[in-house]
């Protein structure tokens, strides 16, 4: 019980630090496993497991909207099970990945729940209630920290067999559905962003950017550079003609009609 509380608290607190200090990398395995090792009284195993898992999870990073397997839970619980069962880095490795993948879908749920917060955030913004906005932001963070605490606590309390059984018992179709929805939800945000910017005629610029990624697989930075060049040509090289390219004067008015 005490150990379960301790591991849960470490996971929750590490996530809190990570998101309160602007992503300083304290949730990487090399750090997480060492701290778990310190807490459970076996720093050496912690360091070794951390080094091993760091190599494995090196590529799992959150870039943009994609949610990779959760390295914090994977490394934290993998290391805990390895130390508590007296086995080495291999056990940690075998456990870390499935746990990380399970935790990833819990993270998706938190991100979806917080999407619903945004309506409330908008009403706070409309009232210029900065205290409220900061409190809401912190509440969103604490929600995720609690999720990590509960995951750590329950997993250590009921052990690895229970963790495995739980993963196997979630209907695959529901997991898949949530995963699909998670992949689609950014579309709502982009739709909101397009709302004041896009008109009948300049939708082509949007499709142009989309197609450059879809067909040519250019990185976003490259597409931005193309965009800058295109904008430069439209604005400076073809003065007077840019109206014809964009469509019409009505289009220009639409642009500014926010």
């Amino acid at each position, binding site marked *: 019980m005490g150990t379960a509380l301790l591991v849960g608290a470490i996971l929750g607190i590490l996530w809190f630090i990570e998101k*309160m200090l*602007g992503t*300083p*990398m*304290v949730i990487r395995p*090399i750090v997480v496993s060492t701290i778990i090792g310190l807490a459970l009284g076996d720093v050496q195993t912690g*360091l070794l497991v*951390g*080094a091993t898992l*760091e*190599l494995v999870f090196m590529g799992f990073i959150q870039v*943009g*909207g994609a949610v990779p397997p959760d390295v914090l839970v994977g490394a934290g619980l993998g290391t805990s099970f390895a130390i508590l069962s007296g086995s080495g880095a291999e056990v940690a490795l075998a456990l870390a990945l499935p746990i990380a993948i399970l935790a990833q879908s819990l993270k998706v749920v938190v*991100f*979806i729940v*917080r999407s*619903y*917060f*945004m309506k409330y955030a*908008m009403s706070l*913004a*409309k009232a210029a209630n*900065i205290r409220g906005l900061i409190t*809401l*932001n912190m509440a969103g*963070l604490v929600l995720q920290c609690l999720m990590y605490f509960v995951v750590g606590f329950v997993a250590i309390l009921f052990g690895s067999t229970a963790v495995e059984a739980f993963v196997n018992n979630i209907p695959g*179709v529901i997991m*898949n559905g949530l995963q*699909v929805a998670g992949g*689609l*939800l*950014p*579309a*709502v*945000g*982009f*739709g*909101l*962003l*397009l*709302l004041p910017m896009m008109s009948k005629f300049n939708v082509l*610029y*949007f499709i142009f*950017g*989309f197609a450059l990624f*879809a*067909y040519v697989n250019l*990185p*976003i*930075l490259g597409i*931005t550079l193309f*965009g800058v060049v*295109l*904008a430069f040509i439209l*604005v400076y090289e073809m003065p007077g003609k840019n109206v014809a390219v*964009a469509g019409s004067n009505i289009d*220009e008015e639409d*642009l*500014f009609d*926010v």
Partner: protein
Amino acid sequence: MSDKKKLTKDEKKMMHEIFWNSFMLEASYNYERQQALGFSIGMWPAIKRYYKTKEEQAEALERHMNIFNTTPHVVTTITGVATALEKEASENPSFDKSIINNVKIGLMGPFAGIGDSLFWGTLRIIAVGIGLSLAQQGSILGPILFLLLFNIPHMLVRYYGGVYGYKLGTGIMQQANNSGIMEKISKGATVVGLMVIGAMSASMVKLNSAFVFTVGDQKIPMQDYLDQIFPLLLPLLYTLAMFLLLKKGFKPTTILFITIIFGIVGSLIGII
């Protein structure tokens, strides 16, 4: 450009506040607006300085609640530029405020590109390389060195990026005022912004069809056909559909709900 210009004591104080507020950028990261809540809180030191009435402050906060996403380590540079634009907007009644969001959107893509490759791709890997070899020898210096090697540059970029962004933004504004350049910037920013949103939609919105045609004995996955016509056609159509629903007046929350139902039901009947 006004790089040589020193910040006043007051402006310095604001940059300190922006630095500290920027840390909470991702606390409530979510699918609908990503880092928007954290970003508007990051803008607050500027908003409260430039706008005195509650209505103006509310308008500015709402403006910055638009979807936002960039590498957290470099966000202050964008906050700095947006701060300079807000300053101009508060002083000049004829300033077109939609430019602020367009410039922000134009910047978040490239900054995510530079930031991800610099911080996630390069700096982190170097720090891991040095930290790992020590950790493997059982030295506690491993993780400590890893954190220091990563975070010292991180903090420097976070602080000075903000100052630089603010100076850069003010410089652009000073030039802009006397040459009537704003319309051009607005037009240009819209073109770049739309292309970046297009590219980001293509890279972040994910939808594949799991539907399989059966022709005689042959099984043909529908996704293969779609890929031949237009790769990522489904994410494009979905994003445009969301845009059209919003334009028709649907609430974002309703659309989120529709999307989750769509995911689960689609998965149940096996089309996605």
